[in-house]
């Protein structure tokens, strides 16, 4: 074997899961198990006010009455909710003024990820609220945002510093009774981001958070709340990577968005949790509830997601179009390979007059994976002149994977205009051969076709995110053909 060939094989071997490593940080964690006492302890550790503790307890009591949903098109062994530790945080929880004060091991993690905070801060003009496990350890660009009256902080901080806003909006889109996983999250949520953009303010930079599960066997329960007041605009980026791990890890986040009159929220996600190995062992269970309320007239919420990771993804970013003329959008690329399973889609609930929604979903299945689109378009009685356009495409690579589409329509107003298009295509051997014949390798050929297929969705992402997403797609599909 030639040296270049050897090098290449080594490279490929090392590329298995690029972000699979564990950082050693001293951590403070609660014992496994879930009961009222644990919830009080979580709340106490976070120095929360009484009303928050009570809210968590209400959620927990309700959760005890609920059953895990079984309707999705995914399969996994039963989860023992008593075998999970619900709180873990780096031991000391200092407030940093500069990066130099941050634990070197944590900074090392960011360096390995190729997202050194310094660079993020200086080059991209991105304010990074880095969530390391459950506690925010670095928040930047705060001063600049402060000038504009924009609040961008951890949820824990918001609970202490902005209780009125939190009380007013937390649970107002996803109530604590909403669904099994959202209710669990309401009881035990660890941390997350809080954003408030005041009236008439256009947030001048992309707000971004990097999430990362670090402590072994610790489910992560993020809670994010974004409120855009009248006439405000904000674009929020969420990106995640997670270390290699053998046990399945539960991730049940809740994201709530509120857009008031004439406000716009753009929420972009690149999700790359550990998908499990080639045999389907390990990997993250990603059971997320994301929902946005277009409360005001002319408001707009746009979800864009690129989902390449997780063993199981169960996720339906949705829009409740209450305000007249409000707009909901959902752009999604979901990739599954090997034994990954994804059941994802959206719900567009039209309530106001002249509300409009657009759904563009692009599923890609390879290996023995299963990829389902599940979407609901609901036009309520009062929603005069509502319009929806849905485009749900599936791309298959190989013969052992599956793609499924479950579009649900509930139309209760005869003025509604609803259009649904769906296609299923397969990357054909003749297409690959055609590209080979033009000097393009099979791997590049697949990337070329896949990038063409998803470009409509990637175009919705901020530039630097789109580049990262494209790389993730090609890594996720490596070795899927030939």
């Amino acid at each position, binding site marked *: 074997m030639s040296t270049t060939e050897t090098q290449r094989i080594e490279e490929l071997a090392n590329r298995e899961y690029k972000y699979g490593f564990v950082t050693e940080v001293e951590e403070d964690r609660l014992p496994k198990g879930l009961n009222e006492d644990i919830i009080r302890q979580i709340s106490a550790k976070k120095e929360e006010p009484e009303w928050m503790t009570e809210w968590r307890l209400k959620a927990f009591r309700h959760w005890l009455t609920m059953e895990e949903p079984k309707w999705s098109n995914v399969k996994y062994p039963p989860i023992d909710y008593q075998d999970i530790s619900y709180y873990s945080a780096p031991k000391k929880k200092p407030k940093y003024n500069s990066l130099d004060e941050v634990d070197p091991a944590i900074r090392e993690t960011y360096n390995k990820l190729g997202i050194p905070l310094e660079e993020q801060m200086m080059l991209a003009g991105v304010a990074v609220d880095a969530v390391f496990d459950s506690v925010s350890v670095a928040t930047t660009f705060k001063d600049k945002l402060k000038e504009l009256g924009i609040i961008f902080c951890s949820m824990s901080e918001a609970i202490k510093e902005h209780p009125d806003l939190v009380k007013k909006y937390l649970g107002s889109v996803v109530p604590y009774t909403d669904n099994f996983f959202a209710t669990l999250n309401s009881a035990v949520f660890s941390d997350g981001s809080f954003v408030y953009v005041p009236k008439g303010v256009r947030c001048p930079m992309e707000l971004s958070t990097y999430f990362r599960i670090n402590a072994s066997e610790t489910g992560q329960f993020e809670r994010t709340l974004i409120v855009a007041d009248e006439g405000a605009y904000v674009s929020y980026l969420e990106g995640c990577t997670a270390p290699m791990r053998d046990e399945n890890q539960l991730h049940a986040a809740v994201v709530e968005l509120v857009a008031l009159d004439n406000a716009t929220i753009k929420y972009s996600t690149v999700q790359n949790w550990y998908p499990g190995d080639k045999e389907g062992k390990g990997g993250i269970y990603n059971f997320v509830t994301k929902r946005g309320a277009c409360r005001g007239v002319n408001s707009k919420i746009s979800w864009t997601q690129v989902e390449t990771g997780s063993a199981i993804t169960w996720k339906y970013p949705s829009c409740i179009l209450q305000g007249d003329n409000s707009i909901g959008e959902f752009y999604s690329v979901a990739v599954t390979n090997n034994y990954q399973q994804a059941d994802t889609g959206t719900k567009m609930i039209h309530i106001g007059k002249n509300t409009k929604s657009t759904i563009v979903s692009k599923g890609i299945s390879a290996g023995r994976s299963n990829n389902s689109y599940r979407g609901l378009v609901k036009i309520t009685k009062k929603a005069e002149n509502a319009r929806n356009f849905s485009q749900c495409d599936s791309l298959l690579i190989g013969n052992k994977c599956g793609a499924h589409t479950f579009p649900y329509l509930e139309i209760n107003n005869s003025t509604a205009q609803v259009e649904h298009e769906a296609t299923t*295509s397969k990357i*054909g051997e*003749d*297409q690959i*051969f*055609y*590209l*080979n*014949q*033009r*000097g*393009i*390798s*099979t791997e*590049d050929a697949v990337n*070329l*076709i896949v*990038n*063409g*297929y998803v*470009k409509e969705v990637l175009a919705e992402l901020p530039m630097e995110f789109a580049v990262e997403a494209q790389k993730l797609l090609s890594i996720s599909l490596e070795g899927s053909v030939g």
Partner: protein
Amino acid sequence: MLLEIKNLHARIEGNEILKGINLKVDAGEVHAIMGPNGSGKSTLASVLAGREEYEVTEGEIWYNGKNLLELSPEDRAREGVFLAFQYPVEIPGVSNTNLLKTAVNEIRKYRGEEELDAMEFLELLKEKSKLVELDQKFLSRSVNEGFSGGEKKRNEIFQMAVLNPKLAILDETDSGLDIDALRIVANGVNKLRSKDNAIIVVTHYQRLLNYIVPDYVHVLYQGKIVKSGGKELALELEEKGYDWVKNNKAEVTV
């Protein structure tokens, strides 16, 4: 010798299609391969391009001093082998420009040349699209998607012009072209002829050969070359029909 095919046997799904092909092609030459439908013309083209479904059971192919059969399809392309497909496939979402940019740069990389920058590349596309009178709007359209039969063929020759191959195999490029398009495409091909490259024109009508005048004509029948000659052989075939060949199988020349 640019290309030398020796006693080539190939089969697909257990059926032997090529039954001992011998052919020599030198740089600067244009060879026409004619023959009735089903005689194995496209099979030969596919085997040259490296399509895996076809199993070579016997024989050798030497190309530019290399054993062609040992090269992957993409490496053959990078070595200068180009196939204009009889049925060009549609690739939704991939623009012509994007395909060609990737192709040109992969080929350049293979040859140890610098990648073209965006400006140089667009310049190249513009120049070559004129050669086959291809409207610029085709550049940004998905490869062959929604193209008419003739547009697909024209697009193949456009790609050939951009990639500048040493050995081009044109498989029934004339089919689906009206007379004007045929003239344009043939003109394009003629401009690409040089003493450094060779072209194999596969067709079952002699019409195209009025425009692309071959140095040699070979008749393929039932997986064998049963007759070879100069350009006048094409006319003779036209006049007498393929039955003439079928009845004269003994006259095999190499």
